[in-house]
């Protein structure tokens, strides 16, 4: 297929892209789609817009989602009851608090080592890390300078949590106490320390 030219080309390109997204397990970026279809990125964007109309909620049981650094097809959540009846395997069971915390630490601090996770959580993260690895939510990403294996989140993580990129995670400081509260807390802790020292 050559670059979009005729009036029929956008729908045709949309169909090709729909096919590719159907075949690929990983999200496909606009650049990858452009390369595979030998179309320009602009034409791909137009075709994706067409597709997204075609797969608008209430029109199709397959949704077009921008996730994990690219585009991917997903099931319409409305069909979840039927899907659960048909497939014995549930989607992702919920995370335990330990798993969620470990995942949060990896997501925000990646690449991060297991000892570091343990230090932040104050308890061993071994079993949580193993489960997250097993579910494909995190993966190894080499070694730290001290030789410990470091971990990062996967595309699967972005897909399952509905994120386009990691940048969509809110700044972790958002949950901090206000600077005033922090300053006050620091002051009080210091005073307690000074009271001891005097």
């Amino acid at each position: 297929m050559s670059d979009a030219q005729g009036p029929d080309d956008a729908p045709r390109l949309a169909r090709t892209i729909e096919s590719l997204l159907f075949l690929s397990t990983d999200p496909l970026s606009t650049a990858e789609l452009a390369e595979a279809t030998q179309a320009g990125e602009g034409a791909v964007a137009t075709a994706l817009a067409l597709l997204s109309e075609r797969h608008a909620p209430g029109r199709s049981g397959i949704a077009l989602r921008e996730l994990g650094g690219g585009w991917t097809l997903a099931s319409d959540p409305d069909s979840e009851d039927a899907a659960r009846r048909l497939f014995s395997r549930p989607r992702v069971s919920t995370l335990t608090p330990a798993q969620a915390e470990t995942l949060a630490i990896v997501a925000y601090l990646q690449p991060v080592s297991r000892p570091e996770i343990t230090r932040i959580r104050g308890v061993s993260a071994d079993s949580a890390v193993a489960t997250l690895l097993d579910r494909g939510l995190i993966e190894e990403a080499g070694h730290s300078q001290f030789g410990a294996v470091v971990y990062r989140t996967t595309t699967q993580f972005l897909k399952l949590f509905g994120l386009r990129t990691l940048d969509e995670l809110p700044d972790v400081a958002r949950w901090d106490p206000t600077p005033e509260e922090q300053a006050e807390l620091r002051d009080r802790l210091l005073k307690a320390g000074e009271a001891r020292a005097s």
Partner: protein
Amino acid sequence: MSIGALELDLEVFTGPFDLLLTLVLREEVDLLELQLAEVVLAYLDHLEQRGELDLETATEFIVLIAALLELKSRLMLMGEEEQELDIEPEQAAEELLARMLDARRYRSAAAHLGELLARERGVRFREAPLPAKLRRTIVAPAEGSYDAQALGEAMGRLLLMPPQIDLRHVAVPRVAVSERLALLRGLLRRGAFSFEEAVRGADRMTVAVTLFALLELYKRGEADWQQGESFGEIAVHSPQAAMPAGAATLASAGGLAG
């Protein structure tokens, strides 16, 4: 259940555990007035009601209660034994603050991830292998397309010895309770002794474990003790020995028991 939701009905506080933590951090509840033992008992009650031990929650509880105990014992030291402290108060305060903020940050971030996951409920993805026709077309990489240097680099990484990890801040149980029990029993056989004698020259860890051993002996009815005033000498004796009226026993170990 998250441990944060544990309902407490204490002398100085009524409400969920995580609110208590917040109030303690803001010093709206005075940690010195808080009987941590009560919190532990409330947790044990809760366990009994549930009839099962959730390890995740139990771990979380132990971490939090240990942090509170550490904080409380630091507050209680009030200038004494200053020289024995490994860390400067400023540093300790900063460290404590940083740890509290970190823990709070990632607990909140974890809750946020939970919300994201819930929002995506019912969204599934197709996980089918490529059709055979397409699979056959996957081209093997060309000869010499990997760089052997990468293997050497990997070996270098694997040969790297990790540096000694600084464990000074971690309470390593180098002292066995059984050891200290034996020591205390030995002292008891010779008659009464002061706690100071039992721990002379010992490090803080040993002192703590010895106290633990003493509590154990008390529980078994093998020992009793008196302390005339706060931070005063603790005289230990076997329960058969004469005990002057008004002698405080457990209560004088007061703060330490929580």
